[in-house]
């Protein structure tokens, strides 16, 4: 049952790491814990709930699409925008059986994979971007930076399906079940594909003299 925006608001989950719960134009606090509630509020015309979804998953989706597009920021932006627009347009098709992000990624990848299979992404130097985590010592940091750059180059040279599954697994930290859900594959298939993708990546890294 889809709750009405004017019905009793869902309780706010304490300790939610998401930003503070904003309020919609009606003055109601928005439940950030449940994507289904947010989706229901968006369906009912609550623009604030949609903004919450964008803030919650926009960064993640954009980063994923950036690496999927081999660092082509322009393509990543287009894919991100199209994914959210399609999600907004087809929000009534979101059944809630999977997570909103999983559903959103599926919408994004369908378009991105189709386009990237035909269009070579424009190379982008990702070295200018700050790594997501860099807590190592200065010497080790340099080595990590070199490895990271090599991994980025090797990742960009991987086939799109291998690149996707590695990004989903290693970058987005999805487990096999989630990857299987996103790619609509069996977990065994996901493992085998992931092993092949890793082997291909290792070959590429070895060709560059990296470990």
């Amino acid at each position, binding site marked *: 049952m889809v709750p009405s925006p004017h019905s009793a608001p869902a309780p706010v989950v304490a300790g939610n790491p998401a930003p503070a719960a904003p309020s919609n134009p009606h003055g109601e606090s928005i439940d950030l814990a449940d994507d289904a509630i947010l989706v229901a509020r*968006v*369906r*009912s*015309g609550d*623009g604030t709930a*949609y*903004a919450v979804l*964008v*803030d919650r998953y*926009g*960064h*993640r989706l*954009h*980063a994923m699409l*950036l*690496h999927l597009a081999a660092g082509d*920021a322009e393509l990543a*932006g287009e894919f*991100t*925008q199209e994914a*959210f*627009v399609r999600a*907004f*347009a*087809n*929000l*009534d098709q979101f059944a809630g059986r999977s997570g909103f992000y999983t559903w959103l990624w599926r919408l994004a990848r369908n378009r991105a994979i189709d386009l990237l299979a035909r269009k070579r992404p424009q190379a982008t130097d*990702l070295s200018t*971007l*700050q*790594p*997501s*985590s*860099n807590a190592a010592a200065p010497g080790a940091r340099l080595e*990590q930076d070199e*490895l*990271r750059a*090599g*991994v*980025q180059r090797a*990742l960009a040279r991987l086939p799109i399906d291998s690149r996707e599954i*590695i*990004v989903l697994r*290693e*970058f987005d*930290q999805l487990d096999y079940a989630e990857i299987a859900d996103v790619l609509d594959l069996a977990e065994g298939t996901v493992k085998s594909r992931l*092993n092949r993708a*890793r*082997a291909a*990546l*290792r070959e590429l*890294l*070895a060709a560059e003299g990296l*470990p």
Partner: protein
Amino acid sequence: MIAPDARPAADDRDDLDALADARLDGELSDAAWATLLAHHGDALTAALDRCRRVRTALATLPRPALPDHLRTRLLAQTSAPAPLAPAAALAPTVPVTAPPLRPVGGWRSWLPLTLAAGVAVAIALPFVIDGRIPGREPPSTRSGAPVGAPAVGDVVSAAKEAPPVRARSRLELEGAIDGRPDAVVAAAPPAAVLAKRTQEPLPGGAVVPSEPFAAAAPPQATKAADRPPSPTSAPVATALTTVPAPVPVPPPAQVQRPTKPAADAASAPPSPASPLPRPTSPMSPPVVQSAAAIPEPALADLAREAAAYRGRAGGVPAPAVSTVAGPVALGIAFASAPAARRTALRAAGGAAGDDAKAAASAPRVLAPGLSTAPTAASAAPLAGLPSAPPPVAARSAPATPSAAPKPAGDAAPAEAAVPPDPLILTVTLRNRTVAEQVLPPGSLRLVGLGADGSQRWATVLRAADTVRVPPGGDLVLRETVAAPPGDAVRLLVSLAGERSNVLDLP
């Protein structure tokens, strides 16, 4: 579960990396991993470290934040308040990507578009050229007879015979007086359909009876060209054509006294030669208005003009000027007036002179879009006038052809008065509409203004001609008129409330 010695002969590095990945994925138990370590030694430990570093590198790849402009776009595209129905709320926000414009259907898609564009351009082009807006014209007045059907007072005999005009051709046109060709631009009816003039004499000065110019204008001789006299033909009052000739007597209903003041026209059958406004629509063919349907404003205009005539330089206001662009744009300018011609004019006792005689011997050639036909005045004998009426001077009895009309108020005999030099003017008419404009005889007037801007004098141009201006065409009339009285310092051409530029007299 992978056995420690499952693939001992395989590629060491790849196998060790695969074992390390399996360990990192939690697929190898501690016991199995210990067995593998015991078997492969430090190589497996190095492989495990290598895989961990690669994974760390992958996990620490840059995670750029969502660009602000992208976030703004995302929120802006869906910021419109959605209605209660989700489908209806979401539909308008979907960016519709227009398909590339391409000839999907070939001619099936392009041909209608091309035709539609052509039709639109064809419709809009005349208005763009004329700078007019359709709908500003007064509605077309259809009164009495339908288009093409002659009504009482209409002059349509020649017009009915005229085929559609052809634009942008030139044809020599005889002037009404001097026989000189008028420059006609824009329409050229075939010679076979050129209007024919009546051979009857046309008394002059009838329309402007009280003006000095009319009195000073000597009788002119204008012979008709090649058409036998019509049973309805009659003398036409004009200040410039005054050759006497016998004319048949028309039915009494068509009799119109040319010297009748315009103010009396309200109670009398209106004359088709009167300068009545002819409302026309740019999108409809012009309608020659019958005499029975003269609108009240036109009668009032007639009354005002008649008062001006009677007052004779009495300082009456100038003709009213329409602020709305009319169907025909008027212009007036000087043309040269040779001295020899003035002599000839005086010798001939009129403005036509031997040019008119020469013109009378030649077939009447009219310009395209300009046809002359016997007016109602010419078709209706003037009651009380002789069959060959001489020019009528202002407030005077019909004068004889030999006697030059004397200026009104001037007691000196006409023979003693020296006519002032005639003026040769160029009158331009531009049809701003997309329909042919028919200017009835007598509708085109030359007005003299005093220094104070008031009307001091007026005469009718083309009193016997039905002037037809083709759609979008220009018509240039060369008019030779006697000089206006001295108190008239400026000239203009008036047509149904519209007037041309003001021409300062030297």
